[in-house]
């Protein structure tokens, strides 16, 4: 094993960089004593950063993570409510402001992603709930003149001798007492809310149009901004004639900003109409000459000629290959993808009297605060950052270029600004899931044991690109030169010294073999990259599972039995595959339908999927998907089901349609007509089987995605005999 090959965990500890969502874990020391961003109610009692209890028994929960659809408001309120003995439906749930107490314990910063929230907050929020309950019990004991041992609690009430007293009755006394710090937690058997499939706490607001998203923010004198940007990433504005647009109705300002040129008007449609009249000219950059075929050619060349950097080197791959009865070698391709959350990027910024407010749906509101501070010159303490619901994110809302733009426009126009991207902006000016060329060479014996696994990936790296976006946000005081230096350093490190784990995660871990190597060759084309639902796993699972099917065939084994044989060192995944096998054996697909299987571990969760597929002409139709998941304790099984259903659909969009074509440095696709999203008429039935292994919860937002593309590809092979090794899947 190479000296520079740190494990991912070591790497995270060392640099504080994490995959899946947000980045950078610098502890924000000194912040914890600062004032909490909580509006005090009349006689409200704030025992800690997460709760406020009012005398009329209002229980407010300040949710530290961002709600992007994954159900985190329900999940985290369930954790704190379980120990506090308050049902989530009886809480008022608010999005927390910026404070280090709201840091994601896994990241060390306020960030939501990496399927981390329930795992990271599982013990923390339960402990906060238990401690607060302990405090209320002590206060009640004092006020009621009884010993604490005769007090029980239920649904927001103190119970003594069958009589109920609302928590709110004791807040004044509680405020004078010291809270316990290590109150006992419930055993799993005592859970009343954890493990129950109750309704999402945000379902009513989201079914009546009353849930407030960033785009819905409306403040007095708010103006609307629309930006024209270069179609080629990184190209600066050369010149623009503003005269026609400036004379159009409602237009108040036309401002050159770092990303292009912004039109400000009284109403959105006026800004949008005027912006269309601009014909900005852009500088040429290196990327301006690059087409999709050039990217592929560069990757091909790197795959053939560069050894790259060693990520993993275990055992003796040469000897393993020599010992094999059969050797399989194949290349797999996955394209650049946009996230396309349905709510386009937007932000509202108001700057007044040396203070600022920012509203935006983000995967880390502290980053919005930092960017407003950096680009307005207002100190962070004077920037109030307000979270909203996120209209989808999938990794996209960790990059906040739109907050920079809104700040620049608010400063230059001296007006409160609502800045909104179009769908075209979203698809053409975004940050992307990196394209990947992967090669795996593996050996297998006739008895089905894998003797060697040699994997290599070529493509761009997410982490330095994300650093580039996040460092200015998280360190608003750091000058650009330092940031450029650090970003450059990280690029060099990942290109020449160590592998960005997000680039290769999932390519080699799941199956037993003593002999493994993983190499990585960095090839960048200045295309902005970031996390995309399930990150590296979104493409590595396709290569890993595809090769596994081919190995099984060579060994003359059933592909599921082959995976069972090769997961002896991975008991939880083995069990998921075993349960899936039982379901699969009971299936009797109709004439013309075929079953494909895949399994994958990501974000500490194990998932297997069985896809029932037909192929008619060149059309691949997925009729049904059965998804078996072990995510430890399912805090809310219905939300786990929903996340699996959703990840299957998200993954199918990528498997069947997702493709971006680069033409002279610009992505050609622009809206849902040429970047289609799976429709209801194309959506399969989804059956979800949850295995409750009883251990602490692991992620569910992303792990349902990686198995779907290889499961469909496997079924397509059954149907047609074609091994499809490129995404999106296309019948030859």
């Amino acid at each position, binding site marked *: 094993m190479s000296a520079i090959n740190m494990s991912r965990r070591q790497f995270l500890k060392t640099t504080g960089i994490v995959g899946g969502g947000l980045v950078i874990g610098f502890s924000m020391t000194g912040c914890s004593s600062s004032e909490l961003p909580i509006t005090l109610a009349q006689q409200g009692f704030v025992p800690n950063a997460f709760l406020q209890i009012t005398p009329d028994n209002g229980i407010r929960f300040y949710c530290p993570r961002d709600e992007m659809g994954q*159900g985190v408001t329900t999940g985290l309120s369930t954790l704190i409510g379980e120990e506090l003995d308050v049902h989530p439906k009886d809480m008022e749930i608010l999005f927390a402001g910026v404070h280090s107490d709201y840091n994601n314990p896994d990241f060390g910063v306020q960030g939501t992603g990496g399927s981390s929230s329930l795992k990271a907050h599982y013990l923390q929020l339960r402990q906060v709930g238990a401690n607060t309950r302990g405090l209320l019990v002590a206060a009640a004991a004092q006020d009621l003149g009884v010993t604490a041992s005769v007090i029980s609690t239920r649904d927001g009430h103190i119970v003594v001798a069958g009589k109920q007293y609302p928590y709110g009755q004791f807040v004044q006394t509680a405020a004078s007492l010291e809270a316990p710090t290590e109150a006992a937690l419930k055993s799993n058997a005592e859970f009343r809310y954890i493990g129950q499939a109750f309704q999402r706490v945000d379902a009513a607001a989201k079914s009546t149009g009353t849930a407030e998203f960033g785009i819905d923010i409306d403040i007095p004198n708010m103006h609307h901004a629309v930006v024209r940007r270069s179609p080629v990433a990184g190209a600066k504005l050369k010149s623009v004639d503003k005269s026609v647009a400036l004379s159009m109705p409602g237009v108040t300002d036309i401002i050159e900003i770092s990303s292009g040129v912004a039109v400000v008007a009284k109403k959105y*449609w006026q800004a949008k109409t005027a912006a269309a009249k601009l014909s900005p000219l852009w500088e040429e950059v290196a990327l301006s000459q690059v087409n999709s075929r050039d990217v592929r050619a560069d990757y091909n060349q790197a795959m053939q000629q560069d050894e790259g950097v060693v990520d993993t080197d275990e055992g003796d791959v040469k000897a393993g290959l020599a010992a094999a009865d059969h050797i399989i070698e194949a290349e797999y391709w996955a394209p650049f993808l946009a996230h396309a959350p349905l709510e386009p990027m937007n932000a509202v910024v108001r700057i007044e009297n040396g203070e600022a407010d920012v509203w935006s749906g983000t995967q880390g509101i502290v980053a919005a605060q930092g960017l407003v501070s950096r680009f307005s010159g207002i100190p962070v303490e004077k920037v109030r950052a307000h979270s909203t619901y*996120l209209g989808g994110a999938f990794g996209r809302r960790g990059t906040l270029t739109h907050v920079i733009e809104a700040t620049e426009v608010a400063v230059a126009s001296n007006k409160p600004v609502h800045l909104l991207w179009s769908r075209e902006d979203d698809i053409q000016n975004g940050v992307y899931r990196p394209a990947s060329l992967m090669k795996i060479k593996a050996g297998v014996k006739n008895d089905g044991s894998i003797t060697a696994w040699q994997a290599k990936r070529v493509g761009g790296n997410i982490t330095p690109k994300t650093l580039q976006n996040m460092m200015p946000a998280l360190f608003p005081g750091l000058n650009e030169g330092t940031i450029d230096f650090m970003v450059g350093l990280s690029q060099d490190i990942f290109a020449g010294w160590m592998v960005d784990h997000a680039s290769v995660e999932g390519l080699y871990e799941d199956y037993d073999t003593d002999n493994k190597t993983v190499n990585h060759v960095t090839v960048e084309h200045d295309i902005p990259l970031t996390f995309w639902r399930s990150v590296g796993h979104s493409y590595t699972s396709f290569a890993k599972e595809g090769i596994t099917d081919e190995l099984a065939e060579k060994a003359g084994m059933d592909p599921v039995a082959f995976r069972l044989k090769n997961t002896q060192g991975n008991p939880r995944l083995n069990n998921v595959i075993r349960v899936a096998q039982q379901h699969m054996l009971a299936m009797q697909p109709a004439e013309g339908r075929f079953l494909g299987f895949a399994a994958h571990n990501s974000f500490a969760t194990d998932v297997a999927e069985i896809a029932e597929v037909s192929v008619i002409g060149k059309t691949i139709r997925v009729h049904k998907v059965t998804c078996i998941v072990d995510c430890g304790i399912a805090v809310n099984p219905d939300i786990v089901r929903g996340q699996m*259903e959703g990840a299957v659909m998200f993954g199918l969009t990528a498997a069947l349609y997702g493709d971006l074509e680069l033409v002279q440095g610009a992505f050609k696709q622009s809206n849902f007509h040429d970047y289609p999203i799976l429709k209801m008429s194309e959506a399969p039935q989804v059956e979800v089987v949850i295995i409750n292994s009883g251990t602490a919860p692991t992620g569910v937002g992303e792990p349902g995605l990686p198995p779907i593309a290889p499961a469909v590809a496997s079924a397509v092979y059954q149907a047609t005999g074609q091994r499809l090794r490129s995404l999106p899947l296309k019948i030859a």
Partner: protein
Amino acid sequence: MIEFILNGKPVSTDDDPTTPLLWVVRDTFKLKGSKFGCGAGLCGACTMHIDDEAMRTCMLPISTVAGRQVTTIEGLGTLEDMHPLQTAWVDASVPQCGYCQSGQIMAAASLLKHNPNPTAADVDAAMSGNICRCGCYVRIKGTILSVAQQNLAYNAAQEQKA
């Protein structure tokens, strides 16, 4: 000046007649429940009812709705008084991010009004212009079909009483 009926109340606006209805409703009348997703009639997030017909409003100039009835999600039901579809949506925890759901519910309400007993294929046909990026299709479809069944059972019971 263009006049129309918005959720039962007469309104008028001097917005440019080419302005899409979505932006007049959101920016001028401050009803934010209808969403912008694509601006090209491709995703359905902006769906409203124009005289009981579900329509995409992100490209529909307000000049075309002069004198007509416009219903938005806010006019369909409220937190206190939900439309049966909204109640069922909550019961089934249909929404994830929730951004498309106003449009989904408006499209579904129009479908059930015109076809109280839709088949699964009818639901697919009526709803396939409404994209859900979170992929809540399994629940959206199941909930529409179950509300249709409830309505039919209710109507049958009423008929029997009469």
